[in-house]
């Protein structure tokens, strides 16, 4: 459904001479230049800088003497790092899955010619407008057993009702999933809804003529055609999951203990609070490697598919 790529600009421009011609040809690159320069310095340059620091013994402030892989050895001997990694696994997969499933479900439901669709959409979407600091503060309160939901249910007469995940090690990471999904589902729903609205009705009509029921139409025609939306949603959710920092800080503070630590909070704690910049840099590099390992093949296959599809 994408148009064929436009042929290189120069060939189509009427021939002109000298500098003006050259300038006109180079103009697109000149316009793109500052952004590329920024990315080169502020993304790739800083990654290299971090990589270098991860091979040093930097503590309070950056130092640049090479010290080998000692920080990586320390990192993987650190129990807290493993907790952070496994939490990222739990949080990342559950958060993304929950957002995708709920988002798709809400989008499909909303797409059934619903009254007050605009209002409902706003309700599902508004959490995205809040900062994680706000979300964390509100949810921290709701999930607090003594003040929030548990207290409420007990007041209603269910004396033995317990919902204390936020204070239970091993469970607190799931409260981060709850709050995170609450915040991000609306956006995913909007993406899917937009995707649903963009589907060509004639394909569906054709399927109906063939006698396919609504469930089949959704599972075998509509959902597969939402593939690009899944891709966009995955990119956005993945980036939220890996960068999740504010939410954990505001909701659990990484606790109880360090049971809800994520790599981002781990890196921050060690680099900035414990004066172990080298170790922090090593953990940051591991995060970046994970991102590259997951995202790049995904993006590559998607752009390839696009170009040939």
């Amino acid at each position: 459904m994408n148009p064929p790529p436009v042929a290189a600009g120069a060939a189509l421009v009427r021939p002109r001479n000298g500098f003006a011609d050259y300038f006109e040809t180079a103009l697109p690159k000149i316009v793109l230049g500052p952004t590329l320069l920024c990315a080169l310095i502020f993304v790739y340059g800083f990654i290299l800088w971090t990589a270098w620091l991860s091979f040093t013994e930097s503590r309070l402030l950056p130092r640049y003497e090479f010290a080998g892989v000692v920080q990586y050895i320390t990192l993987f001997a650190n129990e807290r790092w493993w907790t952070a990694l496994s939490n990222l696994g739990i949080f990342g997969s559950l958060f993304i899955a929950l957002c995708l499933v709920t988002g798709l479900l809400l989008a499909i439901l909303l797409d059934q010619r619903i009254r007050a669709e605009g209002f409902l959409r706003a309700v599902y979407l508004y959490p995205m407008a809040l900062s994680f600091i706000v979300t964390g503060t509100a949810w921290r309160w709701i999930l607090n057993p003594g003040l929030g939901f548990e207290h409420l249910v007990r007041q209603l007469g269910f004396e033995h009702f317990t919902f204390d995940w936020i204070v239970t090690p091993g469970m607190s990471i799931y409260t981060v999933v709850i709050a995170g999904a609450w915040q991000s589902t609306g956006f995913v729903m909007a993406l899917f809804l937009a995707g649903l609205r963009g589907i060509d009705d004639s394909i569906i009509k054709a399927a109906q003529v063939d006698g396919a029921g609504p469930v089949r139409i959704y599972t075998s025609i509509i959902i597969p055609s939402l593939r690009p939306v899944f891709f966009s949603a995955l990119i956005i959710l993945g980036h939220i999951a890996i960068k999740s920092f504010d939410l954990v800080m505001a909701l659990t503070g990484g606790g109880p203990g360090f049971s809800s630590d994520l790599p981002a909070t781990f890196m921050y704690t060690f680099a900035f609070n414990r004066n172990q910049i080298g170790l922090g840099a090593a953990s940051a590099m591991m995060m970046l490697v994970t991102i590259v390992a997951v995202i790049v093949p995904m993006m590559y296959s998607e752009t390839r598919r696009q170009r040939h599809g």
Partner: protein
Amino acid sequence: MAEPYRTQTAGSQLIGRTVIYTLLILFALYYLMPLFVMVTTSLKTLDDIRGGNLVALPREISFDAWAKAWGAACTGVFCGGLKGNFMNSVNFVVPAVIISTLVGAFNGYVLTMWRFKGSDVLFTGLLIGCFIPFQVVLLPMAQTLGWLGIANSIPGLIFVHVVYGLAFTTLFFRNFYVTVPAELTKAARIDGAGFFTIFWRIILPLSPPIIVVCVIWQFTQIWNDFLFGVVFSSGQRQPITVALNNLVNTSTGVKEYNVDMAGAIIAALPTLFVYVVAGKYFLRGLTAGAVKG
């Protein structure tokens, strides 16, 4: 006029509709609960909060907490509430959103209408910028801002937000312009229209839907940012998220939940406003192409 696949026979339709509406309303209640709790709590007195429960309505509505959060709450020796910080945020968020959106639009335009050898690779390379964890860039960025002479200033903060927003804005515009038929620009080029003429005359008039999406996204991201705000600003120049953090982390004897909640809502008002007012255009913009590819 319902599309055929969305309707069924009358009997099953009634049951189906009931299920759909019930589900939608349940979800809506779930999504509204935190907001409801925040709003009612902010309107309660402290006694009321202690005595009642989470979802109880305030016994009497009091706006004291709001007044305090806005103009009188103390952090350290400063007792001016969030008022000043609100304007700080406006001062750097607006330029940062405008610049990053504009640059993103040009980038998207180049990457679709003026492709050159290697431009796809460059685009993929740019996208990696979406994923860099911000904690990683704090120190090198501080150093760079120091060299540029804009450390600890509003321009510095704008600069940081623009730099790390470009990957997203470029992505939005690129994916939107990919859907614009190439014939539109081809004809103009044969007539001799230049790079900027095509952009202003042809591309920009097509862009409002995606501009809305991009502005909403950037506005939300930058307004809500805490980390850059706390690290790259100080004193009375701090943005509202930092002031809010100071507010909720400061307590004297009793924790004033009502003031915290009022502060949280104040900090969220502009983004809430943008979502509610522009929400319709947001979806339209997404439909118009942002999600394709």
